[in-house]
């Protein structure tokens, strides 16, 4: 268990951020703050990542991809929202093209406020994320917030009918259905 927390690999995704927070995350990985001394690598690959670092208010163009990336990260995983935009929508709150923060879509474990979030704050936030990640296991499955209601309904229905329940499959199907029905962006949007 103690070896596990020494090697968190992060996936960094920008959902419509102004690049301020992204530059600060890169500064964390650089020589001055050096996140690699905790074993952290910036893996560009969701299938090998543990910590999902998201910046930016979720714009219409990025929301489907955000959900897909979240689904592709294998458990145990932690989500960190970096910057005021990712936490609440920030200065873009309630604009026509913005979804007011990451936690409207996926469960967020750590919020790092600030515009932009300072590298020290990001460092502390990721340290906190590692503590949360330590408790989670392969079996701790979390449901994306957008399909929470449907998931519970489907689950209770299946339990009533006495069917065998594969939570991951249900979540996967529901997310695909949700993206198809609600998040398809046409050209004129």
């Amino acid at each position, binding site marked *: 268990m103690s070896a596990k927390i*020494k090697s968190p690999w992060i996936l960094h995704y920008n959902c419509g951020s102004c690049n301020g927070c992204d530059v600060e995350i890169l500064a964390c990985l650089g020589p001055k703050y050096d996140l690699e001394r905790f074993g952290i690598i910036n893996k560009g690959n969701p299938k090998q990542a543990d910590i999902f670092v998201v910046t930016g208010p979720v714009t219409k163009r990025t929301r489907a991809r955000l959900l897909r990336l979240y689904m592709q990260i294998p458990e145990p995983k932690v989500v960190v929202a970096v910057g005021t935009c990712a936490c609440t929508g920030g200065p873009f709150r309630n604009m026509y093209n913005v979804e007011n923060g990451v936690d409207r879509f996926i469960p967020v474990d750590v919020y790092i406020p600030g515009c932009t979030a300072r590298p020290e704050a990001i460092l502390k936030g990721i340290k906190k994320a590692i503590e949360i990640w330590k408790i989670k296991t392969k079996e701790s499955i979390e449901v994306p917030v957008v399909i929470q209601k449907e998931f519970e309904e489907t689950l209770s229905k299946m339990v009533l009918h006495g069917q065998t329940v594969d939570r991951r499959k249900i979540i996967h199907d529901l997310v695909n259905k949700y993206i198809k029905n609600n998040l398809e962006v046409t050209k004129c949007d």
Partner: protein
Amino acid sequence: MAWMLETIAILSPIIGGFIYGFERVVKARMQNRQGPPLLQPFYDFIKLVEKRAIQVHSFHSMMGLAFFFATWFTLAAFLCGPNILVGLFLHILALAFLIIGGFSVLSPYSVMGSLREIIHLMCVEPILILVAVGLFLVTGSWSVRDILSYSGLPILYLPLVFIAFVLIIPAILKKSPFDISEAHQEIIGGPEIEYSGFFYEAIYTAKWIEYVFVFAIVFLFTGVHWWLGLALSLLVFLFINALDNSTCRANFHQMIKFAWFVLLPLAALNIFVLALWRYVI
């Protein structure tokens, strides 16, 4: 000392892990950073066991495992076998597992990475074979055990072959400037992109074994003088890391041109002159 080569072959994942951990520390120090601890690769190893493995399909996962076992077997055949050429040909086979695995999924990055991996093979393998031929011309034997008991210094007869080999090492270990097949942030790992959890672990560990393979070849260039061999390996190690830190990624045209029109003629010239000197004059 009698079972030294066998021991190295069996323990190669652990030795390679230490080499990889040391490399990450050295690289960090070169960039004026503190860097991860020496045991970092093993921490990664333990973590990857605890991750859930998402399989694309079973054949793809099997190719990942096959790549690991084939690489391990290649090293064993290279070190303990009667002929180093067998080891080099098995090395092609081991990489073929990775390439077939990469082609078997629909991910465009994976397919692109596999295509580039084939280009790597095309550049690397002729030079590896010329290294074997050169060592045979000098020492008169194809086996590692005999080459390591040769009393002279093969590197003095094979300076150009050695230079060609050192400059192609980045292509074997996928380091900048020749890291085109796994090009992080460009095609995100290439053929290894779709592996996760336990199956990525196999690929990750196979890469450590490649380190042992490469530095074993460097070690052969000093014959029986094993102290010189260690010093030479360390020197090459530092040079490769400095090169990795200070260069940007070449594209595949540049890599092929460099390998085929610069390094290959250089190595061939050395062997040609040596053969003339040995057998004709």
